[in-house]
């Protein structure tokens, strides 16, 4: 008989949280701390969602989405998790760019970007200050008609090099393009610019382990390998969730799964107003990613001064957001992990990430898919050669992930790496007005994605759920 992963679960909870991405984890923790009984269901065999890692023989551990997040994560972890988690967050001080237009190093904060823009790019200081102030003043309630491209045109007309410096990292961070609303750019950019880029010392496995322990301390019933199959709605209210063949009663559901998956797969469109369904259908998913993972032999050391922590590279002569999605990859972001990431293991690793389109990978036959993966690894090794000479002699193991990999592990429609485009936020926020007790907390709207966005959105939604449960 298969193992019962819901063994000894209660028949009903105040809240069922579906999915253990950072937003789901944070929502479960916040609600439990506020005194509610919480069941957390995760379909995968480990917690974390896209905040994940995997092991390969030889003592290597690869982090999938630990490339960098804004300083705000320290405060959010301290407040919504605990101070041990917050205290493990450290700054990445060596961010590099290398492309046909420029090659430079930065600490990735407002002061250092200003220095580069004034001294290297020859932009007037006043313009730079005004640009930063404008970006910082943006909120999600502001003007949505101006695009990021128009914002740049206003401050730096015709300056493709400046646009590349300011936009390329954000495009990597959340898939946004020059055609997306300027405010999504402004909010995310300002988050990073406030104090630079940070990482979690000890790796993703350590972070998720600490979060798991905190959840249990706060009384959350945590269940892995449990896929929620259905959210039951009765008389316009959430009534129960079916998982592992069992119906579990609840007053509220927080779905951390994909927004469209929540509406169309878990609830079903018949439960919603047709106008809402139209809007939900129109929500555009964000792009997916490919990654190549390279583990170096135990005795090989990377040249930290040459590689840096995070390296944005491109061989494309100009910056165009559609080029970043092209399967003929010209742009790659490398994360270099030194032994300091996990000191007890003493390993060095490189992860190369690119934005990618699901359609380019989904239609391939088995043989073509394998061949495409092999080519992705080989062309990446060729490209890394410039920064790590003789890379092929230095590696112990390689692996790669495609949009299909992301889809398989997270059930995200189209393997979406960063949720939805901006319009997804309003649809996500409207769910409880359509069905009482139904909430979504997970990457949406560009601004509510990434590690910090997901954690904060988990709190924002928990506040609504808490108010609902108290009524």
């Amino acid at each position: 008989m298969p193992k019962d992963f819901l063994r000894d679960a209660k028949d009903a909870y105040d809240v069922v949280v579906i999915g253990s991405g950072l937003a789901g984890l944070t929502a479960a923790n916040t609600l439990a701390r506020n005194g509610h009984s919480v069941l957390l269901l995760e379909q995968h065999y480990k917690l974390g969602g896209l905040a994940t890692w995997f092991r390969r023989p030889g003592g290597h551990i690869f982090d999938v989405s630990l490339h960098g997040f804004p300083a705000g994560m320290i405060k959010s972890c301290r407040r919504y998790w605990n101070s041990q988690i917050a205290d493990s967050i450290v700054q990445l001080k060596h961010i590099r760019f290398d492309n046909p237009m420029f090659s430079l190093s930065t600490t990735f904060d407002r002061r250092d970007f200003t220095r580069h823009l004034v001294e290297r790019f020859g932009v007037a200081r006043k313009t730079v200050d005004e640009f930063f102030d404008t970006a910082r003043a943006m909120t999600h309630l502001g003007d949505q008609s101006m695009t990021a491209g128009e914002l740049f045109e206003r401050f730096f007309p015709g300056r493709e090099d400046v646009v590349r410096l300011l936009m390329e990292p954000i495009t990597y961070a959340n898939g946004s393009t020059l055609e997306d609303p300027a405010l999504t750019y402004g909010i995310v950019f300002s988050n990073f610019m406030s104090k630079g880029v940070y990482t979690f010392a000890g790796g993703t496995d350590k972070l998720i382990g600490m979060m798991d322990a905190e959840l249990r301390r706060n009384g959350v019933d945590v269940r892995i390998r449990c896929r929620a199959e259905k959210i039951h709605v009765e008389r316009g209210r959430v009534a129960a969730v079916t998982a592992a063949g069992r119906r579990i009663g609840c007053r509220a559901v927080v779905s951390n799964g994909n927004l469209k998956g929540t509406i169309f797969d878990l609830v079903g469109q018949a439960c919603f107003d047709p106008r809402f369904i139209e809007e939900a259908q129109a929500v555009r998913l964000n792009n997916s990613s490919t990654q190549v993972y390279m583990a170096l032999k135990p005795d090989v050391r990377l040249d930290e001064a040459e590689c840096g922590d995070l390296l944005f590279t491109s061989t494309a002569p100009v910056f165009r957001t559609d080029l970043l999605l092209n399967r003929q990859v010209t742009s790659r972001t490398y994360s270099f992990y030194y032994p300091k990431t996990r000191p007890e293991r003493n390993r060095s690793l490189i992860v190369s990430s690119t934005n990618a389109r699901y359609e380019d990978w989904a239609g391939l036959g088995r043989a073509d898919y394998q061949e495409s993966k092999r080519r992705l690894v080989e062309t990446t090794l060729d490209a890394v050669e410039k920064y790590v000479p003789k890379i092929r002699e230095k590696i112990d193991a390689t692996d790669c992930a495609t949009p299909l990999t992301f889809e398989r592990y997270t059930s995200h429609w189209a393997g979406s790496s960063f949720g939805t485009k901006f319009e997804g936020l309003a649809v996500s926020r409207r769910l409880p007005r359509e069905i009482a007790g139904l909430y979504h907390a997970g990457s949406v709207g560009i601004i509510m994605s990434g590690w910090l966005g997901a954690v904060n959105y988990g709190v924002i939604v928990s506040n609504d759920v808490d108010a609902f449960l108290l009524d």
Partner: protein
Amino acid sequence: MTGAEIKEAVVEILSDIAPDEDCTNLKEDVAFRDQLELDSMDFLDIVMELRKRYRVQIPEEDYPQLASMASTVAYLEPLMKDMEK
């Protein structure tokens, strides 16, 4: 609770949210935002703490009422006047 007691309760919450700042000498009519380094998550925390500690429900459309000490106390007075401290 009296206005003075409500104010004391708000100062206590603010001090927990911004532990590195002195929240005891805030100017009544000046926005919190102009005296303390508060972001939108901090304001959300004020709302959550008021609910947790005093069971007061503040709908989202009323959040702007929490801009300064004077407006916050004025807004909370009718909701909290029957509470014991």
